[in-house]
């Protein structure tokens, strides 16, 4: 069972000062699953993601991401974890002094990939997010939505095993949002597990998937949209998800 989960969060507690940001949170994300993380502002969504990519460590409890366990991980090995996890940061975190191409390429540079490989893939992904024509611009010359798409491109260019997306469509209009969503689904169907924090409820409902509802640092609800379903039974969930996704893709309902 452990093998099937790429993310495991066990009795996770995170305190800042004497304020709880997360309180005894339990969550497993299976290999290739797609999970929406919703909840009001300040609920702890970004904190949960930060703990998963091990930018911070739990006050209590444990996080397992891939083969990395928060309680035992060697800090020198964390870069290798980060290469397996693509993160779309809520505040983008683009390198201000490098152009769009390099901002996306950097995720591959750190792995020591060959230059022509990098070029090929980066150009491919920039075309997909509609920014090929902006490849030589610095981030500060981009609009908010364009910056967000650069952040998305960087997170997925490596085809990571896990994708953590923190409000990835907050600055995008509905059309582009749908396109990006389709991109994420495609990556997901390629085997990447996706955990996406969002406020965009219409989105969540449209692309009904597993939804985890966080509030005041506590998981309030963990369910499938439109289906009562037992959240602990991951398998049926998968099947159902896949079916929904397949249907959507074949019927072209999204456009």
């Amino acid at each position, binding site marked *: 069972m452990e093998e099937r989960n790429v993310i495991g969060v066990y009795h996770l507690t995170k305190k800042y000062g004497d304020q709880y940001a997360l309180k005894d949170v339990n969550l497993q994300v299976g290999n290739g699953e797609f999970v929406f993380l919703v909840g009001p502002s300040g609920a702890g969504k970004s904190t949960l993601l930060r703990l998963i990519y091990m930018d911070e460590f739990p006050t209590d409890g444990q996080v397992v991401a891939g083969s990395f366990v928060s309680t035992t991980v060697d800090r020198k090995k964390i870069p290798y974890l980060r290469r397996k996890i693509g993160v779309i940061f809520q505040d983008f975190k683009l390198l201000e002094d490098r152009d769009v191409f390099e901002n996306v390429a950097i*995720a591959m540079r*750190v792995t*020591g990939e060959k230059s022509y490989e990098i070029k090929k893939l980066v150009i491919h992904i920039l075309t997909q997010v509609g920014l090929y024509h902006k490849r030589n611009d610095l981030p500060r010359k981009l609009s908010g939505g364009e910056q967000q798409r650069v952040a998305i491109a960087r997170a997925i260019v490596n085809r990571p095993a896990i994708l953590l997306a923190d409000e990835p469509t907050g600055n995008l209009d509905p059309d582009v949002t749908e396109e990006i969503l389709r991109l994420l689904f495609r990556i997901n169907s390629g085997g990447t597990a996706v955990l996406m924090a969002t406020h965009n409820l219409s989105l969540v409902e449209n692309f009904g998937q597993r939804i985890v509802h966080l509030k005041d640092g506590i998981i309030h609800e963990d369910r499938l949209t439109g289906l009562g379903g037992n959240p602990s039974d991951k398998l049926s969930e998968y099947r159902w998800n896949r079916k929904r996704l397949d249907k959507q893709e074949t019927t072209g309902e999204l456009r």
Partner: protein
Amino acid sequence: MSVHQLLYLIKESFRTIKRHKGVTAISIIIMSLTLLILAVFLLVTDNMLMFMSQAREEMRIYVYLEDSLDRSVIEDYHRRILSMLEVEQVVFISKEEALLEFREELGEESDLLDALDTNPLPASFRIALKSAYKDKNKIELFASKVGGLEGVEEVRYGKDFLEKFSTIMKGFLYVDAFIGIVVILSTIFIISNAVRLSVVSRKRSIEILKLVGATNRFITTPFIFEGALQGGIASFIAMAMLFFIFLVGVKFLPELSFFSPEKAFAFILLCVLIGSAGSFTALRRFLRA
């Protein structure tokens, strides 16, 4: 680290320098000026030390002989002294030569020697010792040894002067060393802080690189390369400026001499090391936090 990556990182450091032209230029200029001050200090010290060793070099021991001594005995003494372990060179100075030298020394006032009826100056040996024996105690030992010879009136080696000279030189060395420590520490501190501020100004980039999976080595390599490059360029500029200053100074003090090429090269090499070490330590602290 793969070859691709290394190539990328080297290219990257050049690109960073280009991107941050302003900051790089500022920090190179700060470094050059600081290094120039250090280099001026080193050059002055170098010349002072050379002057001191030259003064030591020129130190002579005078063995005054009684007028009664026979020429054959003098020649025997000459040979004997020359064969002594401590001795580098021996010159015999006759009474007449002594008077001539004295007249020269007096310069404008030499006319008062005209009042002399006889030559009151004795003949002497002027002895140069080997460097290894130019120590105050060893000189004293040597002097007493030679002074013991039959017919030697007196041995003089400027005992007072020697003592005064060595006190002044000791004083100079202390002050010089003190200033040296201040200047060297200041230099290292200013350079490594200039580098540190440039690291701080790229703090956000470093954090982001860490978040996308860069190892510490990936992050540090361009910085170290940059630091080395900056150190090299800055020290080269400092040397060039110093040489210009030297050219002006030498007009007034013809005795001045510039660094030997080896020393200049060592200086530049050292600055390359300081530059890269500065980057490295600035980053290390940073990457840990």
